[in-house]
C-alpha cells in the first residue's frame, strides 16, 4: 500500500454536515493501518460537505458528500485498500478532471492556504508549513519601522470593511508616546451571512496569533485582546488551545524567542450585540460597559482601550500579516490591483450552484465569481444581483457584473467590500424584501444613541412594510431616499452611516420592483406574503392529499384523487403546501392578471 494521508474537513460547517461521524468511522476502521488521519479546518467546498481528502503518491483526491458509513467504507475498500480512486464521489483532484474543478482552480489561496490543510489544534502542524517563521524573521532582523515599512510595501488594507491602510494605523499607534499600548483583534463578525473570520479562527488560529504578535512588536504593545463572538464556540476552543501551545513554545509570554520582546494574548467573548463590531463600541465592551460607539477623534490609536493607544484590526487583516513576513512584501503585492493588494475571502452564498468560502485576488469581476467559481445560478434561472458587504453594503445588478471587486470600484457603485458576505440573488428574490431584511436587522441592532439611527431606521422600515403589504404610495420612494440621506448624515458611527445602503442601492438599480409593489400591488418575485395567493393547478394536481394533510389552517379542500382547491380566505401563506407537493401543482401568483386565472377565491 502506498503512503496515504486522509483529512476530514471539520470546521463547524463540516461538522454540521456530519464530518465528526465520518472521522470517527474512518479512524475506527483504519485503526492500526498507520495511515495519518487528521481533522482540518474548512476545505472551502462547503456545498459538497462532508469532505474527505485522500492524498497518495499519485496526487490529491477530494471526496464530497461523504455522509454515510457506506460511502466512507467505499473510500476505504476502493481507494485505501485497492488504490482505485472512487470516481463517483470525487469533487476535486489535481490529477483527474472534475466538474467542479474551476471552483478551486480559479481561486488564489494565500490567507486560506492552511485552512483545510493543517490540523488547527496542533502547533507543530502549523510550524511544519512555515508557521512562526515570519515572526522569527521580524524579531531577528527588523526594527519596528522596518516592519511597518514592509506592511506598507505589501499594500495591506484592512479587511474589516472600510479598507483603511494597515501600515498607517500601525504607525499612528506606534508614534504615540504613552504606554501601555494594546493590540485588539476584532473577531466579532456580526454580519449575517459572513463566516470567513470564523473559518480562519477555526482552521488556522496560529496565523492570527502570529499576526498579532508582529503587530504588537511594530507598535510597542505587550498585550493583545481577541474580542470574539460567543456564537463561535469551536473557534473559541481552538484559539484557547493555540494560545496555550504558543505560550508553551515561547511564541507568547516573556522574552519571545530570546528577543527581549514580551507579548501575551487574552480572549474576550462578545455577548451578542452587532454594534460591538464598531471599534469604539468594542473597546467599551472589553472595558465591561454597554457597547455604545463614541465620537472619533480621538481615534483608538490615540485613546483606545482604557484610554491607552490601541491598534484594532480585523481577523483577516492580522492573519494576512505572517504571509508578508515569510513570502516578502513583493510577492504579496503581486496579487490584486493598483490600490487593492492581495486577496479577499468571501462567503459566497445565496442562489449559486457552488457556495462556500472562496478566496480570490482583488480585481476579479463579479461575473468570474458568480459563474466560474460559483458555477452560475443553481435553479437555472436568471442571475439578478449580488448583495455585497453585508447589512451596510449594497446591491450590484447583473448588468454591472463586469465590475472588478476592489475597494474603489465597489465604493463608486454605492456598495462596499465590507467584511465579505457575498450573496447571489436570482429572479426568485424580491429586492424590496432583501432591503427590508437588512434594515430590519440593523434597526434592531442600533445602540439607540443617535436619533436618526434609532428612529429613522424604524421610519424607513415602516415604509418598507407598507410597500411590501401593498399599501405603498408613490411618494414613499422619494421619502425613503430622503430619510436614507438624513440617517447617513446624522449618525455618529458607521452603523447609522451605512444603514441605508441596501435600500438606496436597490432603489437605484431595482426601482421598477419597488414601483410594481406600489403601483400594481404586485411582487414580481412572488415573495411578499400580502401580495401573493397560492393556487393549485387542477391539471397537475393528482389529488394525493399531501398538501391537505400539511396545511395548518385547513385551507385546502378536495377529495382523494380529485383536484384540490385552496380557500384563500383561510390560507395563512405558510408555504408548507408548496414544499410538500410532489407534482409541482401549487404555485404562488401575484398581480391582477394572474389572479384572474383563478376560478375560486378571486374575491380580491
Amino acid at each position, binding site marked *: 500500500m502506498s503512503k496515504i494521508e486522509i483529512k476530514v474537513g471539520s470546521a463547524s460547517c463540516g461538522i454540521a454536515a456530519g464530518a465528526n461521524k465520518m472521522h470517527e468511522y474512518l479512524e475506527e476502521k483504519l485503526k492500526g493501518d498507520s495511515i495519518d488521519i487528521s481533522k482540518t479546518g474548512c476545505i472551502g467546498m462547503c456545498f459538497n460537505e462532508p469532505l474527505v481528502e485522500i492524498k497518495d503518491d499519485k496526487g490529491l483526491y477530494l471526496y464530497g458528500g461523504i455522509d454515510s458509513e457506506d460511502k466512507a467504507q467505499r473510500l476505504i475498500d476502493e481507494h485505501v485498500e485497492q488504490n482505485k480512486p472512487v470516481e463517483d464521489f470525487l469533487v476535486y483532484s489535481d490529477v483527474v478532471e472534475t466538474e467542479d474543478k474551476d471552483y478551486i482552480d480559479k481561486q488564489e489561496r494565500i490567507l486560506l492556504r492552511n485552512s483545510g490543510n493543517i490540523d488547527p489544534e496542533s502547533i507543530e502542524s502549523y510550524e511544519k508549513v512555515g508557521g512562526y517563521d515570519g515572526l522569527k524573521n521580524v524579531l531577528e532582523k527588523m526594527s519596528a519601522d522596518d516592519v511597518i515599512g514592509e506592511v506598507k510595501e505589501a499594500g495591506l488594507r484592512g479587511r474589516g470593511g472600510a479598507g483603511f491602510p494597515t501600515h498607517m494605523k500601525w504607525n499612528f499607534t506606534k508614534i504615540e508616546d504613552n504606554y501601555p499600548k494594546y493590540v485588539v483583534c476584532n473577531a466579532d463578525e456580526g454580519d449575517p451571512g459572513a463566516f470567513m473570520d470564523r473559518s480562519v479562527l477555526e482552521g488556522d488560529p496560529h496565523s492570527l496569533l502570529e499576526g498579532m504578535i508582529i503587530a504588537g512588536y511594530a507598535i510597542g504593545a505587550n498585550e493583545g485582546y481577541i474580542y470574539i463572538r460567543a456564537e463561535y464556540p469551536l473557534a473559541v476552543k481552538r484559539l484557547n488551545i493555540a494560545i496555550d501551545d504558543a505560550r508553551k513554545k515561547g511564541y507568547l509570554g516573556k522574552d519571545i524567542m530570546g528577543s527581549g520582546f514580551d507579548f501575551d494574548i487574552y480572549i474576550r467573548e462578545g455577548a451578542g450585540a452587532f454594534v460591538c463590531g464598531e471599534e469604539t463600541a468594542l473597546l467599551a465592551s472589553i472595558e465591561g460597559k454597554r457597547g455604545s460607539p463614541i465620537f472619533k477623534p480621538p481615534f483608538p490609536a490615540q485613546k483606545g482601550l482604557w484610554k491607552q493607544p490601541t491598534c484594532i484590526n480585523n481577523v483577516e487583516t492580522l492573519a494576512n500579516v505572517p504571509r508578508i513576513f515569510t513570502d516578502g512584501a513583493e510577492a504579496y503585492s503581486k496579487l490584486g490591483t493598483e490600490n487593492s493588494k492581495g486577496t479577499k475571502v468571501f462567503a459566497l452564498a*445565496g442562489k449559486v450552484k457552488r457556495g462556500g468560502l472562496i478566496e480570490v485576488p482583488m480585481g476579479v469581476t463579479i461575473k468570474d465569481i458568480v459563474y466560474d467559481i460559483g458555477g452560475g445560478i443553481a435553479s437555472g434561472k436568471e442571475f439578478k444581483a449580488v448583495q455585497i458587504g453585508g447589512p451596510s453594503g449594497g446591491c450590484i445588478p447583473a448588468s454591472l457584473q463586469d465590475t472588478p471587486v476592489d475597494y474603489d470600484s465597489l465604493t463608486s457603485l454605492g456598495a462596499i467590500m465590507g467584511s465579505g458576505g457575498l450573496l447571489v440573488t436570482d429572479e426568485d428574490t424580491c429586492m424590496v424584501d432583501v432591503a427590508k431584511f437588512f434594515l430590519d436587522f440593523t434597526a434592531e441592532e442600533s445602540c439607540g444613541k443617535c436619533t436618526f439611527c434609532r428612529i429613522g431606521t424604524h421610519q424607513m422600515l415602516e415604509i418598507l412594510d407598507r410597500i411590501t403589504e401593498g399599501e405603498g404610495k408613490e411618494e414613499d420612494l422619494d421619502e425613503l431616499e430622503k430619510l436614507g440621506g438624513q440617517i447617513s448624515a446624522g449618525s455618529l458611527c458607521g452603523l447609522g452611516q451605512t444603514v441605508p445602503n441596501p435600500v438606496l442601492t436597490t432603489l437605484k438599480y431595482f426601482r421598477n420592483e419597488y414601483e410594481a409593489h406600489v403601483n400594481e400591488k404586485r411582487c414580481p418575485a412572488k415573495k411578499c406574503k400580502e401580495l401573493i395567493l397560492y393556487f393549485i393547478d387542477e391539471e397537475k394536481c393528482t389529488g394525493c392529499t399531501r398538501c391537505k394533510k400539511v396545511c395548518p389552517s385547513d385551507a385546502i379542500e378536495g377529495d382523494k384523487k380529485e383536484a384540490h382547491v385552496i380557500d384563500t380566505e383561510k390560507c395563512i401563506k405558510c408555504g408548507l403546501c408548496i414544499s410538500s407537493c410532489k407534482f409541482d401543482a401549487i404555485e404562488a401568483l401575484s398581480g391582477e392578471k394572474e389572479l384572474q386565472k383563478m376560478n375560486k377565491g378571486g374575491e380580491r
Partner: protein
Amino acid sequence: MSGKTMIKPAEMAKKLEEIVKDHGKMRGAAIPILQSIQEEFGFVPKQLIPRLSALTGISQSDIYSILTFYSQFRFEPLGENYIQVCHGTACHLAGAEEITNALKREFGIEEGETTSPDKKYTVEKVACIGCCSLAPVMNMNEETLGRLGPEKAVKGAKENAKGGES
C-alpha cells in the same frame, strides 16, 4: 446549559462568590462574570443581582444596563430543548421564516413567546451561525441541522429532543 434551575438559594450564593473570585483580578470583568453566571445557571437569576453588586462594587443599575443591552443574557430559564433557527441572510432567502413558524406552531409557542407552555422547547431566531452553505440551518442542543425545510425541521427537532419525542 439548561436544567439547573432547581438549585437552592444558599448554593447559588456560594457559586456566585466563586465566580466573582475567579474573575477577581480581571479589568472590566462585569460581562465575563455575567457570562459565567449564565453558563452556570442557564440564565441570570435576578435575585443574585444585589449580592453581585455588593461583591463587585458595580452598581445594580450598571448591571441591569449591561444585561438589557446584550442579547445573549436572559432572565428566564430555557426550555429543555434549545433551538436556534438561523435568520441570517442566506437562511432568510432559503426560507428561515417558514421554519420558525412551523416549529412554533408545532410546539404551541405563542406569538411573541419563545418557550412552549410545557417548557420542553425554546425556539429563538439568531443571526448567521456560519454554515450558510447548508442554509437554512438551525442549532439544536449541541447539534447543527442543515438543508432544512419546515417539515424536516419539525421532524429533526423531535428526533433530537431530550427525553424522547413529545
